[in-house]
């Protein structure tokens, strides 16, 4: 899969909580170029994670549009969104436990992630798990069960699993949370590697400004609005 551009147009999302409206995102306009690595940063409650879920098709925006390549995904039915997540978008959720089967090893987790595209009989060949781990410099994790991996290893494995189907877009939510500096750097390096060598548009949501340093573009969110964009 080639790297995909990602575009948001007048994107708005409002939560209804106890009868009150909470605006999470407010008229976001954003275009991410194919193969770029992007950091979306901001404090807690700024709307980072909401933006990630909208880009991943995990929920629908209240208004506005999200495009993946030329396809508007914000209006697609659930089954089409499943296929997009199976083939075009890889997601590494905030908590590594949400990305990995705890009882399987690295290879098993990658194979599990590859069940999605296989179920759609995708013609393009999927990478061999071992080869993928090797490509990402994680070959040493291959046979180790997840519950014996360290936090940093799990985080990196989560990114590898998200890349199991060679998606055009990788979305990583707080990929460096709970990690020490060394592990954080390894993860950032991995993101950059994915962007540059695997032809993938990388979107990393983080509250850690140091993560953005290593990536191509930094977009800052505050109270649901883009307050700063390094590309602007």
């Amino acid at each position, binding site marked *: 899969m080639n790297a995909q551009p990602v575009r948001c147009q007048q994107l708005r999302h409002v939560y209804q909580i106890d009868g009150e409206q909470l605006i999470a995102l407010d008229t976001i306009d954003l275009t991410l170029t194919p193969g770029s690595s992007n950091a979306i940063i901001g404090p807690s409650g700024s709307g980072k994670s909401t933006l990630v*879920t909208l880009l*991943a098709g*995990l*929920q629908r925006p209240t208004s506005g549009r999200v495009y993946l390549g030329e396809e508007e995904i914000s209006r697609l039915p659930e*089954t089409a*969104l*499943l*296929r*997009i*997540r*199976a*083939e075009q978008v890889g*997601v590494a*959720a905030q*908590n*590594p*436990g*949400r*990305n*990995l*089967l*705890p009882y399987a090893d690295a290879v098993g987790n990658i194979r*599990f*992630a590859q*069940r*999605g*595209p296989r*179920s*759609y009989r995708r013609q393009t060949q999927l990478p061999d798990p071992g080869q993928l781990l090797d490509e990402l410099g994680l070959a040493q994790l291959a046979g180790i069960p997840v519950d014996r991996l360290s936090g940093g290893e*799990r985080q990196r494995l989560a990114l590898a699993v998200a890349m199991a189907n060679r998606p055009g877009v990788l979305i990583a939510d707080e990929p460096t949370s709970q990690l020490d500096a060394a592990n954080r750097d390894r993860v950032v390096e991995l993101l950059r590697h994915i962007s540059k060598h695997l032809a993938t548009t990388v979107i990393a949501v983080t509250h850690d400004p140091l993560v953005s340093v290593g990536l191509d573009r930094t977009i800052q969110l505050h109270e649901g609005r883009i307050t700063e964009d390094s590309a602007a």
Partner: protein
Amino acid sequence: MSGAVLVVGAVVMGAAVLGPLYARAAGESTLRDELTQAGPATGLEFQDIPNGIELTASVSHFARAESMTLAPGAVRGYPTRIGSIHVETLGHAAAGPAVRVGMLWRAGACAHLIILSGHCPGGAGQVLVSQRTVNGGYGWRLGGQLTFAAGVTARIVGTYTPRDPQEGFWFGHNYFQPSIGVNGPDTVDAVFVGQAEPGTLPPGTQATLLWDYPLNPAAIRLDDVPRLRRDVAGLQRRYGEANPCTFNCSPGEPVNVLMSTDLEKVLDAAAHQRDLVDRGTLLVTAQLALLAWLVLFEVVSDAVESRGSEIALAKLRGLRPWRTAWFAVGEPLVLLVVAAPVGLGLGWLAARLFSSAVLAPHTPVVLTWPAAAALAGGFAGGVLAAVAACYRTLTRSVLAQWRRTTRSPRASRVGLVIDVAVSAAAVAGLVVLRAGSAHGTAVAALLVPGLLVMAVALLGTRLLPLLVRTLLRPTRASGRIGLFLAARQVTRRPAGLRLAAMLAVAVGLASFAVSGEAVAAGNRDARARAELGAQRVVAVQFVRGVDPVAAIARADPDGRWAMAAATWLPDGGDSVTGTVLAVDASRMARLGYPASGGPSSQRIADTIGASTHPPLVTTATMMRVVIDASGMRGLPPWVQFVLRSPADPFLTVTAGTLRPGTHTYTATLDCAGGCTLLGLAWNRPDTFGAMTGTLTVRSVGWYQHARWVPVNASLTQPGAWRAGPEYSDSTDTLRATPHGLRDDYQSSSGYGGISYAFVPQPMPVVATRAGVTSGGMTPDPRQMVDGLSTAATFTVRQWARVLPVVLDSGLIANLTFMRAMLPGFDAEANWMIWLGPHAPPDAIARLRAAGLTLQHENTTQSRIIQLGRQAPALSLFLLLACAIIGSVVAVGGTAIAITASARRRSHETAALRVAGVPRPALYRGAVIEQVMLLGAAVTLGLPAGALAARLALPVIPQFADTTPVVLHYQLPTVPLITFAVAFVVLVVLTGLVAAAAVLRAAVPARLREAEE
């Protein structure tokens, strides 16, 4: 969790299979019991009465006719054919009176007789006679000669007593029922002869040719019944057409064999029982299966919920919906596939266990297609539970799964609708129960308890959070953190409330079942006691010369463990429509059981035994009376003692001719077996003509132990003697004087006398309304008449709804009075011995040693077992067993669910610990929470089950047939309390273990771990 799914899945399928397996086995058991208890009624009887054929010919006719009957084994269940030739004739010993006797040849009879002396007839002219006849005073003796009709003679080569006249071999024929003849010869037990012997009797003698086919109940299974019905119906068509041979029949003429049987009625009764079992079993096991299904739903829900994050991951990776679904339910489904054979095995084992516990011995438990269908249904139910449990998790979005969104408002609305529907169904069931009748009521009676406890459980657990919420405010500001946390958890945990509801249903059903079984057991006991009258009842063959009452008195002189009783059907009198039970009133209160709903044994004894003068019974060798006679006109009569002995109901012993002045009249007695003095007669049998006079009986005495003993005959007491009612042509006027009893007698025929009035007249009895006639042609006073046409007058001193043995149709009278008043009673009655709980182990041996001929024995315990094998009891037993299994499953399901929730709640609890809440407070909170939930289940379930029992039990059939015995439905306190205590202990233990599990999982490190 996988193990839990496997176990509960196996229980669901086991419960589903158990119903059909048990129903089938119970059907087999009730069929076998019905067939066994029906006795000869299930047999086939082929009969040929060749009227007019010479008996010699009839013997050869027998072989030809036998060839026309059914070959043994031709119809399943009838492997044996017992042929017999029975001829009614007269016979007498050389110096004895003529008696009616049945000359009987019956194939293989000697194997069913106890040969007391000699041997079986082995050739022509030989007969085997009963010992009872030998003892009967007819002059029969071993080696003696008997002469039958037309001078045919035979030699007595042996004596016998039947091993058991009720034995199936005898097919219910009355070969052993001697009786005293009215205006004719007595009837004695059958004499056994060789097959050719009846042919020696003169032509015209009535012969009955019989071929009996006793049914072997063990050979008949339910599957055989349709074919058996067809075969027997075919036989009835073939042999049912009566074409009696006329008087001119000759040996060459066609044989007219007729067949009769009551098998169809018995099979109909068995089918009725099976129908009851099927219906009851279906309803009972459906409730268990439903409960187990709910537990399975909870367990599978927990199993799937524990994989919620993996399912979310599958969705995140874009797996197709069906692949995600398979990912979620695949494991439970595979486990259910594995659970199916395990469940089948469990169900079979349970059915086998129940079968050996309550069904007829050796009842087979066989796998049938309904069981296979039930297994498939159970599996489908399990799959449905798995799918339903997965649905919520599968339809939840990835984000909702990550956020662990609680129950949706829609699900809450569905839950409310279900609760309202169940409550409405319960109310409707209650209305049907209170107002309905027959079939609808019986079905409702088994369904309503389940619905009622479900409604109470569901509504109660809805109210629980509202009640507990009131604790929030007072505990929030107080230092009772544990109580506060517990209250918070209860108010916000729908899963906990579901568990409480499920447990409450289980407890409710169990308490209903415990009540039902205890009530039914009590009623079975009451019915068995009423039907038998005593703890053990031994049938006695009455033998002339052996007084059962005297024999029992010898074996048990203190009256601690044995008493005599007899049932009797009067020969006439137009007053009694039921059965008469005569009991030894002096022992009744101690040894007899009352019938539930009737008077107590003491009350019965007091009512029927009200005699101010004791009977005068003696074994003396001589007796004397001192009489002062004067004013005698006409030829003087004889002075006679009127006695009754076991050997002779009309024992009249002459003591000399009455003479003027005071004289002593002495007679020799033959009273070794015990004689009862009935009165004195002034008899002049040989000379007719009037006689009058006055006499005073001054004293009576008997010679015993080598000396004369004065008899307290109450001669000076007014009312102790009366004019003999049987002396209808005499007018004796009695007056008690200080010198003795004065009698101014006057008789036109020369027969007068006085009776000792130890029998009140009319005789007091306790009767049921249906047992005696009333109004219309009923004589006043009422009377009953024996086969000798002797009448005994009686009055109903107390009416009863139901009485022992005779139940709602009969009366109870004093055995002593009955024997005194009715000379035919002894021989006509069916005698028995009632044994009480204090009977020694060698009671039977002692009674035999006392001279009694004992036959079969019945016990209340065996009757209770019989009643316990009737369809309603089997259903109730299954209900109890299923309810207990259900309770265990529910408690197990609760433990599993708590363990699962402990894992889910570990983060929260760990956070509280990190926040500084002390561990003891957390533990206390967890314990209080579990006790609140599980305690609510007990608090709701127990009264709901008890209420259901109170409402439903009176309309649940307790027996397959009706009984007049009054049944009771009071809730049993002890079993209910025992069950409640046991369950509370279980609940508290579960609460403690669950609380510990919650705390154990809640370690602070949990907060650093990835969420599962």
